[in-house]
């Protein structure tokens, strides 16, 4: 249903420009430099060529079917463009301009006009007040930011739906540092037509998508949102970041239950009921989306920790066991046979107890033997493995070793601390779709998110 949006064969840009100060320039630049290989039609009545492409003075002049049209002219002039596009049967319009309902009643009227025009037609609206869309698999990038200001992630697993444009762009810019990939980015903006519910449905059956990350500020149709979320989450785990946690429509003068029914408590309960994962910031949003897409399910609470740095191991052990500043899970009690195999693989002053410490003597090979022993131990449900590349015997080959043992069916979540080789190493893991995180806390919280999701799925296996 969204084929024309996500894999458009032709894209028109209303308001395309050669003036670098205009967003119509940035959008053209992003489309061209992003490597889009379909046809691009710049629309501008004052130019015949824009960025080396033949420009058209009106949409009608194109004379070909347009799958996707980006409108980058001000709100007031966008109405006519929408009408023309609807007349031509354009499937999807990305309505970039602000100046709609977010500015007040006059803008709200403009939005109503847009909806009146598209009502009953085949044309769908994304936005208005959107920074655009980005589909790495189809190399479609309609972002309004200059290409030299924002990095965009490569093709990957996470479908990213954001009500806020800026938060979406900033998050994509951030995760690009570690080579995290996405399957799509859509900024819903004022969300007058296309919404997160339809998109969840779409990504549910999108083979490129492994998990769905959603940032929203509000929900319109609560029941449908919940039901869709609950169903989609079973196949494609959904992580939700919702702002406005302290706002509430709870009634002041009412019964006990009513006065306690803060909006966020209802929302939180709804997420748990749907089995969706809650994120409280943009970092958690992507961290959890990664682990839920990359890892097999975590079948129990018993975690083994592997480290080459003792301090990192014991802090992680605290985090795993504690309920306060921790995740309230268990440190796996290793079998004697496991400990014997570990002792045979590591230096004498290392620790064969959980957390297993190979010390600075640890090499990728000895690490592999330890992982193998732990994975064979039925007391171990999952592993937190630290890949710390700072010691002489350690090297980037650790990514291959951990990748090899990640095929076992038990999840391995990786922590990488440090920057000189660390960032490179996380990229390596990302390439291999192994969840890796640049801090103890992020690693531990991610394994907890995986546990919660797995537990929900296990308990509701027969529903």
């Amino acid at each position, binding site marked *: 249903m969204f084929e024309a949006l996500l894999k458009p064969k032709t894209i028109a840009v209303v308001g395309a420009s050669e003036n670098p100060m205009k967003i119509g320039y940035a959008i053209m630049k992003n489309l061209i430099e992003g490597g889009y290989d379909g046809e691009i039609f710049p629309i501008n009545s004052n130019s015949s060529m824009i960025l080396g492409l033949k420009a058209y003075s009106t949409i009608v002049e194109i004379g070909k079917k347009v799958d996707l049209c980006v409108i980058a002219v001000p709100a007031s002039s966008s109405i006519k463009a929408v009408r023309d596009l609807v007349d031509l049967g354009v499937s999807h319009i990305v309505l970039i301009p602000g100046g709609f309902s977010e500015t007040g009643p006059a803008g709200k009227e403009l939005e109503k006009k847009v909806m009146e025009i598209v009502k009953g037609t085949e044309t769908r609206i994304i936005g208005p007040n959107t920074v655009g869309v980005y589909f790495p698999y189809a190399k479609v990038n309609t972002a309004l930011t200059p290409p030299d200001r924002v990095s965009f992630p490569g093709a990957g697993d996470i479908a990213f739906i954001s009500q806020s444009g800026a938060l979406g762009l900033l998050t994509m810019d951030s995760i690009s540092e570690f080579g995290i990939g996405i399957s799509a980015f859509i900024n819903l903006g004022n969300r007058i037509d296309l919404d997160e519910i339809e998109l969840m449905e779409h990504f549910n059956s999108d083979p490129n998508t492994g998990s769905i990350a959603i940032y929203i500020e*509000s*929900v*319109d149709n*609560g*029941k449908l949102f*919940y039901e869709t979320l609950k169903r989609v989450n079973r196949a494609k785990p959904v992580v939700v970041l919702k702002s406005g946690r302290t706002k509430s*429509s709870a*009634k002041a003068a*009412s*019964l*006990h*239950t*009513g*006065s*306690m*029914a803060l*909006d966020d*408590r*209802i*929302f*939180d*309960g*709804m997420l*748990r*009921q749907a089995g969706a994962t809650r994120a409280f910031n943009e970092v958690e949003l992507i961290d959890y989306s990664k682990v839920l897409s990359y890892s097999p399910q975590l079948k129990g609470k018993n975690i083994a920790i592997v480290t080459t740095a003792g301090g990192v191991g014991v802090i992680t052990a605290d985090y795993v066991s504690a309920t306060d500043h921790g995740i309230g899970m268990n440190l796996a009690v290793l079998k004697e046979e496991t400990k014997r195999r570990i002792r045979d693989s590591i230096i004498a002053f290392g620790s064969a107890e959980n957390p297993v410490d190979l010390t600075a003597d640890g090499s990728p090979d000895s690490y592999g033997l330890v992982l193998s022993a732990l994975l064979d131990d039925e007391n171990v449900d999952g592993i937190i493995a630290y890949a710390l590349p700072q010691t002489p015997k350690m090297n980037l080959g650790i990514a291959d070793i951990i990748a090899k043992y990640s095929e076992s069916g038990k999840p391995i979540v990786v922590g990488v601390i440090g920057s000189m080789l660390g960032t490179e190493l996380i990229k390596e893991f990302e390439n291999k779709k192994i969840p890796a995180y640049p801090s103890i806390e992020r690693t531990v919280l991610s394994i907890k998110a995986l546990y919660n999701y797995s537990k929900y799925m296990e*308990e*509701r296996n027969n*529903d």
Partner: protein
Amino acid sequence: MIDSDETIERLRREPQTEFTLKRALQEMGINVPRGVLLKEPPESINIPFPVALKVSDENVLHKTELGGVKIGIESAGVLRNEINKMKEKFPDSSFLVEEMIQGGIEIIVGLSRNPVFGLSIMLGMGGTMTEIYNDVTFRLIPVIAQDCSDMIDEVSVGRFTGNGFRGKFIDRKILIEFLLKISELGSKGTDFIDQLDLNPVKIDGDKLFVLDAKIIKYIMDSGGNE
């Protein structure tokens, strides 16, 4: 689970007093204290002392705050005396005299309406500290047994299940069954329940009693929208 929709139908129409609400709960297989509804002081009653006396009137929602509740009444003489005193304050009301349920743990269960998500069910520890500790959790209705079990573990109520806590024990299965019934009541009463408070509900092992029940009716706006 609710045998007849008659219960719901009656609840929809009847004045929403504690008495009518409790009778409906009883018809749903939920325990409430033995009680009798009176207009005048009785010669004797069929309920063992001590008893509780409460004003029963659709227009008196917050009974305790208005002096409409007296507990620990030990004899028929004291009861008559107390009813006469209460009649001065509430001359047109009826009075509910109830058996007092001893022991157990107090919890709160309720329904409340959200403009986006509709009715949801709440579980929390009872007593005044509930609000201070935010010891409550919500789910949209209808819930399934696993949702109820999760709710129990999200609040302190869960500490009393399993082996109990300091000699006090809550039977998880009984509580889940109860929550499912309240969820069903919400589902069937979506068109007329705005808020429901069952507070406190007392649980002692597998014995569960709803001690107080309040309801606020939901009135659709003229457009017929929520």
